């Protein structure tokens, strides 16, 4: 019943100069499934993402799409292969308007031939609607500058953008980190919605609850290697929490903190 992998990483290594960041990463991502990539700070999660989105190239190993090896020379190649990514930081342009920022690189145009013009109205409308569908109803004017938005608002804009353009694979690197309870819930819903539409989703988070809420498949990175790879229901919440903490025993963490505070 398990579909073939849409995207696979086979024996990927990555080092920056003398620093080895990833070693021997093997992962399969299937259509209609959410892979939660978990791990401590600095474990290498964002680096995996950067390989998949064409920002970096692996030092060795192969990335396959539909079983065919691919090599992304630039982020453009990755997005042409249908991979849309929200990187951990950035992705928005403080001095650009919401509408323009949303469509950077994939601007909607009207008119023909040489005289295709950027369709500001439509861009603004789509962008505002996409952001509002995340529950951020304060934003009504697509001409506002991104720099004036709150942290969460900006994050929502970046996610809305990727969801809008994610053709086959949607990658979200800590998308809920800066979001409020309501907005985070919306993101989780969006992830489920994307999954239902048949997209493969890679989701990075430090919040067990968020991971458990949407994940079908979990991979835990510890110091650049895959320490565990399991499917939903195969581990308990406590086991996952321990793995996310880099293999240390975190059971009873909250209780312990509660106890400490007097």
């Amino acid at each position, binding site marked *: 019943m398990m579909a073939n992998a849409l995207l696979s990483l086979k024996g990927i290594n990555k080092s920056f100069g003398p620093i080895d960041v990833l070693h021997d990463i093997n992962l399969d991502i299937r259509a209609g499934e959410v892979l939660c990539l978990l791990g401590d700070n600095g474990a290498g999660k964002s680096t995996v993402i950067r390989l998949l*989105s064409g*920002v970096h190239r692996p030092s060795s190993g192969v990335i396959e799409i539909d079983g065919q090896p691919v090599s992304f020379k*630039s*982020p*453009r190649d990755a*997005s*042409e292969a249908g991979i849309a*990514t929200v*990187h951990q930081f*950035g*992705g*928005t*342009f*403080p*001095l*650009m308007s919401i509408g*323009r*920022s949303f*469509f*950077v*690189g*994939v*601007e909607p*145009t009207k008119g023909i031939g040489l*005289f*295709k*013009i*950027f369709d500001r109205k439509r861009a603004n409308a789509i962008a505002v609607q996409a952001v509002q569908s995340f529950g951020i109803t304060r934003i009504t*004017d697509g*001409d506002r500058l991104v720099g004036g938005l709150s942290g969460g608002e900006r994050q929502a804009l970046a996610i809305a953008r990727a969801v809008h353009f994610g053709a086959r694979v949607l990658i979200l690197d800590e998308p809920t980190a800066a979001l409020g309870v309501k907005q985070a819930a919306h993101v989780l819903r969006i992830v489920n919605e994307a999954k239902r539409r048949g997209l493969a989703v890679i989701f990075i988070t430090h919040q067990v609850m968020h991971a458990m809420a949407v994940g079908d498949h979990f991979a835990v990175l510890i110091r650049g290697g895959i320490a565990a790879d399991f499917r939903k229901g195969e581990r308990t919440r406590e086991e996952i929490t321990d793995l996310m903490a880099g293999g240390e025993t975190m059971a009873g963490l909250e209780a312990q903190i509660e106890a400490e505070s007097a």
Partner: protein
Amino acid sequence: MKLFSSLGGLLRRPEAGAFLGLFAVLIFFTVFGGLTFLKPAGIASWMNVAANLGVIAIPVGLLMIAGELDISVGAMVPLGAMTVAVISGHYGLSIWLGIAVALSFGVIVGLINGYMVIRTAVPSLIVTLGSLFAVQGIVLGLTVLITKSTSVALATEGSAKTIFGDFFFGGQVQVMVIWWLAITAAYIFFVHFSRFGNWIFAMGGDKISARNAGIPTERMTILLFVLSSTSAAFVGMCQAILYNSAQVAGGQSFIFNSIISVVVGGVLLTGGFGSIVGIFFGTLTFAIVTQGIYYTDFDRNWSSLIIGILLLLAVLMNNTFRKMALSYAPKKAVK
């Protein structure tokens, strides 16, 4: 098209400040320069200067918006002038050949600048400084080698003269003014209406995010460098045709003057923000300030002082007016 929803919105646009600065210096020189300054011949005098500067300032401004600098334009002006003068003046070949070669040198230097900027981690100031020196050296060396002189005469007749280097409107206005207006219109379309403009702003805002968003940042960078050096070669070529002569020296003032015009026009030195109309106003402001002085009675020995103060005031007015306008906007009702 409803572009601005309110006075506040209007004043928040990058060109608003530039427009106020322009307005202020116009008033200043009308008061101190009197009527001659506003007669057709007077207007032509600063329009001509603005046009020659403006054709170069716009692509320089676009580079600045995209986070790069190009100072090699200072050598491209004499290169363009000398190329057409040597080919069509010294060797007496067709003027059209001279024009074509002058412009293609512009393209070639632009390509070299662009490639070096994207392939190496060297900042574009240094890359174009290197090519500034190198092109200056080549122009001098080759011109002396070929013509045994550093000044070459050129006599152009017919349509090439009419199109590139003549006066119209009672012999007052350079055709360059028409080129400038046409090119500005083309840039406005290109930058503010087509998708490419969006890419340029994104590149200046955050080059890594822009690249991650799939923008071909490298190709755009090369394109912009080609635009700026070709524009500079174009201006040099037109000047040679207009003045019937080309010198090896000169053109260096275009470096600072274009940067000043661009920044007076509201472009952020650090990139990501600005507008073509702003650069247009900035260029006009600069031309009026530097030329208007000749219509006044101030002692010419003090003209640098007056230019300095006026430029500063024009830019200051930009900021103050914009701020004032924003804070006086009607308060929204408390929710």
